[in-house]
């Protein structure tokens, strides 16, 4: 059948199983928007800024397990999307973004709203395509989804010139997407798996260190839990891996790294075997490299060979998908029919219990206030029973949420880790609400971060999403203030806001419910209202202790065991 490029776009998305896309129209994509108007296969969510379209698609992808999809116009629409592309790519989230482009015959002429988005996004994406001929469109869309979702997921741009949307050709759906130059490894090398299992059963002080890869490989969290129980091994998660192990499982040590728990960082510093499961030894995790896990043999399971031995040498790399490799490991353990080193593990746990007693996340909350930010997070945990979908922005509130929320399940913790993008939280919640409209969704944010994408309250209201925004308002760029206090002798250069809006009124102006909490009682009342309001979003502006700092902290460049505890 003959179709226009715009119709092919719609047909391909339908065939890819797309249910929702996030976008913002403009001249170059009008033909595509016209085709969208005339179809009913997928929903289009109209955001208020292109950056938010990408973050929303990211949030949607993380919760639903499907590929995020967005559509923006050429020039400024596309350049606005760049932060979101880079963000998804750093955090390995599958996200396909369609950008409009000026008509092919104008490319290279500095035409109105022309931007070389292929050039601009080359290093911010896993791959990008310029569609030069409508006949290639279906094949390219197929490849874009394949590349975004397989191997190490990431963002992909498909740049479509306006005339390609208008031109027509016979529609041919490529049945397969075999690409000779792109064939990610899925299964772990059996010989390596065998050696890894031997090392795991022999280890006296093992630690499992899991990350975002466990989120990417659906179903692998259960296998991870099984493995740690079989080995009786402690598990720590990276920021991206939270929810990989239920927070209340006795084997869980909490997060490791710069703001990790004392027990997690001490365990990593003293272990004799470190098994990395879908994590990439980021500098916020390792601290000073030469002092990282100095006595450990390192097993690294990762689908991306470039992650292996990039920062930390892997003694035993296993390239493959986490879910597949963990299953191979479990099978091999039953095959070898031996148990772990029970006696040694007993001693190891005694040591870990001692470290736990330091209670590194402890804090004091007096009844008279001020409200401690940690208290707010813990109260939200109680009300939602650790079962909410939690998004954050970037800063202190993000770290407190990571430390204190306590996640029961995977795919419920949405935060920008790799790029650390302020402005991520609210749009990510908008995306999450499209994937799980009936679940509680909380966005923890800061007074600086929220102002980077606050316009998305309008989107949340338009689609009557029941998001609860909890603003930990310290009137500072708290994380910046903390670094200035610790490393720049308290010279608070441009990290304080002399002027902040009345957030509750602002929220009301956007159509939602706006509340302010200055005391613990007001906080309880506001939270009770928030989680029972069913009509719209609720925004709670919580006045928290202004100069609270995040601890523990491994200062940049220090070793993991050189934590500052308070």
């Amino acid at each position, binding site marked *: 059948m003959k179709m226009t490029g715009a119709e092919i776009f719609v047909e391909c998305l339908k065939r890819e199983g797309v249910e929702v896309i996030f976008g913002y129209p403009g001249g170059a994509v009008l033909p595509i928007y016209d085709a969208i108007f005339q179809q009913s296969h997928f929903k289009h969510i109209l955001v208020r800024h292109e950056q938010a379209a990408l973050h929303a698609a990211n949030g949607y992808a993380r919760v639903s397990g499907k590929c995020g999809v967005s559509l923006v116009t050429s020039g400024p629409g596309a350049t606005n999307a760049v932060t979101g592309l880079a963000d998804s790519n750093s955090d390995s989230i599958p996200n396909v973004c369609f950008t409009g482009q000026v008509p092919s015959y104008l490319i290279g002429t500095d035409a109105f709203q022309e931007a070389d988005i292929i050039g601009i996004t080359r290093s911010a994406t896993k791959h990008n395509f310029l569609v030069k001929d409508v006949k290639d469109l279906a094949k390219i869309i197929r490849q874009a989804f394949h590349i975004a979702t397989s191997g190490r997921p990431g963002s992909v741009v498909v740049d479509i010139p306006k005339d390609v949307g208008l031109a027509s050709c016979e529609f041919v759906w490529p049945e397969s997407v075999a690409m*000779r130059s792109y064939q990610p490894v899925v299964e772990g090398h059996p010989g390596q798996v065998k050696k890894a299992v031997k090392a795991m059963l022999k280890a006296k002080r093992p630690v499992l260190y899991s990350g975002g890869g466990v989120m990417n490989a659906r179903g692998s969290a259960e296998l991870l839990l099984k493995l740690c129980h079989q080995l009786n091994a402690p598990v720590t998660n990276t920021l991206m891996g939270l929810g990989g192990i239920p927070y209340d499982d006795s084997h869980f040590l909490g997060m490791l790294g710069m703001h990790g728990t004392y027990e997690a960082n001490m365990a990593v510093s003293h272990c004799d075997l470190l098994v990395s499961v879908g994590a990439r030894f980021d500098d916020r995790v390792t601290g000073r490299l030469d002092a990282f896990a100095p006595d450990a043999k390192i097993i690294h399971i990762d689908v991306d060979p470039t992650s292996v031995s990039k920062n930390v040498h892997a003694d035993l790399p296993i390239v493959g998908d986490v879910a597949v490799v963990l299953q191979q490991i479990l099978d091999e353990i039953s095959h070898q029919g031996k148990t772990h080193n029970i006696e040694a593990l007993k001693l190891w746990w005694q040591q870990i219990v001692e470290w736990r007693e330091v209670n590194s996340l402890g804090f004091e909350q007096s009844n008279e206030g001020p409200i401690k930010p940690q208290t707010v997070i813990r109260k939200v945990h109680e009300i939602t029973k650790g079962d909410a979908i939690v998004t954050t922005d970037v800063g202190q509130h993000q770290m407190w949420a990571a430390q204190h929320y306590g996640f029961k399940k995977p795919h419920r913790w949405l935060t920008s880790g790799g790029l650390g993008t302020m402005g991520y939280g609210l749009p990510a919640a908008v995306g999450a609400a499209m994937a799980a409209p009936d679940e509680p969704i909380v966005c923890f944010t800061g007074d600086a971060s929220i102002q980077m994408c606050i316009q998305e309250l309008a989107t949340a209201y338009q689609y009557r999403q029941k998001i609860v925004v909890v603003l930990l308002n310290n009137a500072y760029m708290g994380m910046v203030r903390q670094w200035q206090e610790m490393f720049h002798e308290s010279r608070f250069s441009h990290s304080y806001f002399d002027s902040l809006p009345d957030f509750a009124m602002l929220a009301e102006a956007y159509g939602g419910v706006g509340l302010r909490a200055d005391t613990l009682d007001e906080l309880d009342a506001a939270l009770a209202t928030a989680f029972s309001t069913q009509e719209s979003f609720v925004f709670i502006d919580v006045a928290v202790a202004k100069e609270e700092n995040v601890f523990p902290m491994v200062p940049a460049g220090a070793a993991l065991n050189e934590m500052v505890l308070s």
Partner: protein
Amino acid sequence: MRHTITILVENEFGVLTRIAGLFSARGYNIESLSVAPTMDETVSRVSLVTRGDEKVIEQIKKQLNKLIPVIKTEDISFMVHLEREMLMVKVKDSDESLALADEARAKIVDHEQGSYFIAELTGKTEKIDQFLKDIGEKNIIEITRTGPVGMRRGIEGFVV
């Protein structure tokens, strides 16, 4: 250590930019880069010379393979292989320089008596360096070099 890496890529637009961009974004250095089509019109062959310690070279190879249009790579540095590059050099005409060219078995492809000549020379990088040194900087008007291309010895081909 100097490494010569051969890369087979899909013959599509922008591949060279992706390779060059990878090197600049990650701070690896490229000594030379050359690309040309192969017998299979869908495939181009890139020859790249870079420097780095073992760890850096390992990352470079992995990062190259991670580029979507890269089909495969081969580091020929540690294999029995041949490497050649081509030079064209424009030299002020003199009997002495002509004699040096003859001695090096360079081909004179253009010559204007008493003015200049252009010599063409193919060989290992060191041979070309030596030839240029012998001619001497003050006698050279202009040079252009292709950068090395290489191939493993033996009956097997590095093809798709």
